[in-house]
């Protein structure tokens, strides 16, 4: 396969990484939490779609597969809201270490419960397509990946519009800037934070449904996505949706190029080495504001 083909594959998959990372960046920016359980939201979203489709008979048409995405998002919104309200809120304004630890605890608990409930076997959502790929200028483009690419972009765009255009979105941005001042002008800060958490989980869950359709699902998949999100957010800069998009597409491309030109067993090592290098030399990201003073 040609290098161009790897780049195209990378961009298609990278859009999903970007969408997951946007949710991660949202919580980090608004609630000031590095949510180590973010990948588990992706996993849960994927399994939500998977089980809905199993109920519908296993292999379904594209329309039904797409219809499960909003359902998964709704479920994950509730999960995210409840997690923040019941557990994470207790330590939100405490030390960073406590929030890291509690989200790690949640991550292990969800992941292990998923193994107990659904076994560790990898699964994937089968979508029936008569003609699975299209050919453009000598490149193979799987239709499902293209669909996931569009879906991921739509989710990201919707989130961006929501944050910019709606009243609730403005409230979220206000809380991100200054929680005390927001409280003074009558915003329910804790509720807004929980809603943000819910939205972030919903975005991750929606992306998880698409990931289940093109890449597969297994209970321990979460950590990878959490770390990828971290790489992307560090790359793009905290609180920058365009930054996360560019970061996600770049990461996808780099991983596909590594897999294609070197070996697929080295992709993780390459992306995490990249993360460490980035953290050390460019901790502000390419698009974000400075993160100086981070405790």
């Amino acid at each position, binding site marked *: 396969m040609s290098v161009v083909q790897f780049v195209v594959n990378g961009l298609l998959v990278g859009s999903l990484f970007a969408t997951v990372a946007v949710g991660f960046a949202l919580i980090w920016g608004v609630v000031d939490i*590095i949510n180590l359980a973010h990948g588990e939201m992706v996993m849960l979203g994927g399994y939500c779609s998977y089980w809905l489709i199993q109920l519908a008979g296993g292999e379904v048409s594209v329309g039904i597969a797409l219809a499960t995405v909003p359902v998964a998002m709704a479920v994950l919104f509730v999960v995210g809201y409840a997690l923040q309200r019941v557990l994470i809120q207790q330590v939100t304004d405490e030390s960073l270490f406590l929030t890291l630890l509690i989200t790690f605890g949640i991550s292990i608990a969800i992941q292990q419960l998923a193994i107990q409930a659904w076994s560790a076997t990898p699964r994937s959502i089968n979508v029936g397509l008569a003609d699975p790929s299209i050919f453009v200028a000598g490149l193979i483009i799987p239709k499902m990946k293209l669909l996931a690419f569009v879906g991921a972009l739509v989710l990201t765009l919707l989130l961006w519009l929501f944050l910019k255009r709606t009243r609730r979105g403005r409230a979220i941005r206000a809380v991100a800037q200054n929680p005390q001042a927001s409280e003074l002008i009558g915003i329910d800060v804790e509720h807004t934070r929980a809603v943000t958490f819910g939205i972030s989980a919903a975005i991750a869950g929606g992306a998880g449904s698409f990931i289940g359709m093109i890449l597969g699902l297994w209970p321990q998949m979460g950590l990878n996505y959490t770390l990828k999100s971290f790489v992307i957010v560090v790359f793009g800069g905290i609180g920058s949706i365009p930054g996360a998009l560019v970061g996600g597409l770049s990461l996808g491309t780099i991983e596909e190029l590594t897999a294609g030109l070197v070996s697929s067993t*080295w992709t993780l090592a390459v992306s995490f080495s990249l993360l460490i290098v980035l953290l050390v030399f460019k901790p502000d990201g390419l698009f974000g504001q400075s993160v100086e003073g981070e405790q």
Partner: protein
Amino acid sequence: MSTRDLRTRLQTVRAYLGTYGWLALGGAILVLVGLQWLGPLSTSRASLLFFAVGLFLVVWNLLLLRATGVLEFAHDHAWTLLAVFAVGAVAVQAAGLLNSYWSTVALQMFMFGVLALSWDLIGGQTGYPSFGNMAFFGIGGYTAAVLFKNYGVALPLTLVVAAVMALVFAAIIGVIVLRLRGGYFAIATLGVLLVAIQVARNLSITGGTDGIILLDVPDQALIYYGMLAVLVTEIAVVYYLSTTRFGYVLNTIRDDERKATAMGINTTYYKTAAWGLSALFTGLVGAMWAPYNTFIDPATAFNTAWNVEFIVMAFIGGTGTVIGPVLGAFGIRSLVFQIDSLFTGWQLVVLGVVVIVTVIGLPEGLVGQLKQRASALKYYEYGGGAAGGAEAADADATEGGND
């Protein structure tokens, strides 16, 4: 009586009720278990677990009631206590009192004690929450295994080389990642661990995903003594350091690194030293664990579940203390063993829940809580209650008619 005053009193009452309540609950469990033992049901693992929980509740709450005295005693007799522990642990093994199951449990408790204390050195004392300490364990383990298997090096020598390898690796990585702070440091170290796993999977010298099988290894008792020796040495070293300038500097870096730098302290040097010391001990037990396990592969050498487990141990015991992480390790490890035999496969679920509950309910850890209680008791002893009352009254006065 103002509402604030009333609230303070209610809180005091509740605190006391709390301690006695838990004490009563623990006592009740003990009585129940005792009845079960005397009755027809005889002993089962389940009742052993109940017994442990009950014993813990009783002992813990008695400790809380006598917090000041306990801490003073521990402080005055620290070296004696350590010696008693060491001699006792050697004696029970030498006298053959431990069967192979309990010997395994004890050995792993010692190992996790070292891991948790090593983590605490960088995570608790210095305030750099490392999520990648397991990398040093794996490096130590692989160094020992490769040297032993491929080059026929004697095991004691492999231990030395493994510890040095872990130290060198830590120094190189430390120069890069110790420039980061907080969450960035945490994730970068987790990244280091994951890269290490992939490298071990892909190299031929490590045997790839198949790992390395070790034969002709020393028997368990010898490794038991080895782990014990490392643990006792590390406790002694960390305890000694915590009373020296070195220890104070580490705590200063944790509390305010900029201020430490402004005072003219070369923080990079101290951070790297603490990180290196942490890696040295972690690598050493890794090198002992490989022959004990007679097998090493990427998934077990860089076990990501253990990586969280010893952080949790340090946290539950009390970060930034010497004995806390070790006690946490002993407690959690024996709990994990029990759960493993009762509900196989659920130990990580339980671990996750324990983490969540502890973070919310006991953020200072057990030893931290004990210290807090001791200082609160002292406060009341020296008439602090009256001072507190005056403060509350002042606060009432300034708040005007709000109450």
